[in-house]
């Protein structure tokens, strides 16, 4: 953890590890009663990569994250997460795997009868071996990361929507999981708060090299992520130098009517000929 990650470093890292996807969907289909939501979708998330998932409301973005977490089972297809076929695993065995994944729910899903501290500490307390001081230290660290240290003793109902979203992020990252799944982390937030959250995600990507799936409604946010990197020396997000744009491990995936109509990086997206995509990104 010495030198700040340069764009070149990141590029090297992504190419050399491209063979080891942390999440792989193969021909996954799911329907809720008669409503078919995803049809035979396949994609890979490589180690260290952040993949932004787009699509109109109800296109199945949240469903993809829940499938990746094993919270819902697909009707057909195979989902590999960190080398395990989770479609064949029993619920009891999934809990172990899920501890290596952090998830930020669309509506935050904080435990409303626990304080912010207990929410963030939940996973650490469940491990039953970590000392109180260590838990407190890591909770503080995690909350400092999202700039909410002073809310530790408050209840989720006393926080604003944006603060809740950030607590949910703190809860997801407290154990430094290998994979992060963010469901609309900036949805319905003001530009200032969303920029803070985008910076957090970029920091996770560039400093902690976490692989992540990111559901978003705003393409703009993802463009910011693809054109910025986190400078560890200055401690903030900076634009990539011209010419190095898109040299961060950031890809895009667009869903439409149950299918993936685009999966690639920012250059491919900018040069796409598809009418729908052109309209979407304009």
């Amino acid at each position: 953890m010495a030198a700040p990650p340069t764009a070149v470093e990141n590029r090297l890292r992504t190419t050399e590890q491209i063979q080891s996807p942390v999440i792989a969907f193969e021909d996954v289909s799911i329907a809720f009663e008669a409503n078919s939501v995803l049809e035979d979708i396949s994609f890979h998330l490589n180690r260290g990569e952040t993949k932004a998932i787009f699509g109109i409301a109800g296109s199945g973005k949240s469903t993809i994250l829940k499938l990746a977490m094993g919270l819902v089972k697909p009707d057909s297809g195979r989902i590999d997460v960190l080398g395990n076929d989770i479609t064949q695993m029993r619920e009891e065995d999934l809990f172990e795997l899920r501890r290596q994944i952090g998830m930020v729910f669309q509506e935050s899903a904080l435990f409303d009868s626990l304080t912010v501290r207990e929410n963030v500490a939940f996973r650490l307390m469940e491990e039953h071996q970590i000392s109180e001081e260590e838990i407190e230290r890591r909770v503080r660290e995690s909350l400092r990361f999202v700039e909410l240290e002073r809310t530790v003793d408050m209840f989720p109902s006393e926080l604003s929507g944006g603060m809740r979203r950030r607590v949910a992020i703190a809860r997801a990252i407290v154990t430094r999981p290998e994979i992060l799944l963010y469901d609309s982390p900036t949805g319905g937030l003001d530009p200032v708060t969303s920029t803070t959250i985008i910076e957090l995600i970029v920091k996770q990507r560039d400093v902690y090299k976490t692989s992540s799936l990111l559901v978003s409604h705003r393409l703009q946010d993802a463009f910011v992520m693809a054109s910025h990197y986190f400078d560890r020396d200055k401690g903030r997000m900076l634009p990539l130098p011209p010419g190095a744009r898109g040299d961060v491990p950031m890809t895009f995936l667009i869903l439409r009517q149950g299918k993936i109509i685009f999966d690639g990086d920012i250059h491919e997206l900018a040069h796409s000929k598809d009418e729908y995509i052109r309209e979407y990104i304009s």
Partner: protein
Amino acid sequence: MELTSPTDFAKDIVQSVQDYSLLAGRSLANLFRHPRYFADMMQQADLIGVGSLPIVVLTGTFTGAVLALNSAHTLERFGSLSLIGQLVSVGMVTELGPVLTGLMVAGRNSSGMASELGSMVVTEQIDAMRALGTDPTKKLITPRVISTIFMLFFLTIISDFVGLIGGGIVSSLMFGMDWHQYWSSAWQTLKFQDVFTGLLKPVLFGFIIATVGCYYGISARGGTQGVGRATTQAVVASSVLIIAVDFFATRLILSIFGYR
């Protein structure tokens, strides 16, 4: 309201019974698997036990009193008022203590569990818990089931006891019975079979209250309204089940030990 075909309806029922049985079975099986949540068990025990104590004491006392009142009138007619202690004690210990305590706790805690877990389902907190790597059946359901069984057992004993006192007060104050005579006949009439029945029932009822409450909570759908519906259904279902199981348990014990 949508019309469902009879086969779909039957399938739904079979499915629910199956889901309920799975949940009920797992809630006990979890006791033998790590991790076990003692702190949550203690918290629930406090909530159920201490919280229900006042209503259990009140209903127990008045039930014992009214039992004495009613039987005294009948017994007086036959000139055998001295039997009152035996009537109150057998009635309280084998039947009214367990059933009324069960119904009280069902009304209070089955609904509480259904609404708490139901709200957690509709706000995705259950999914969040699973996503955090914690089994909700271990963390939420098992502690509730175990502490309800445990607490109902003791609440029933308390209810039996205050019921006897309530009966004694009525007999001595209103019918001029000797307190000592009442008390010794009440004690001496109790056989092993009565005590066994009286202590087995709260175990069964406690299990019913907690598993039914948790089942309706965990399977709540459709927002706040769904949670409300789950809450009412939990109370209705657990109360009806308590009374039905009471009958079958009594029948079974009688067939094992024979009639008194």
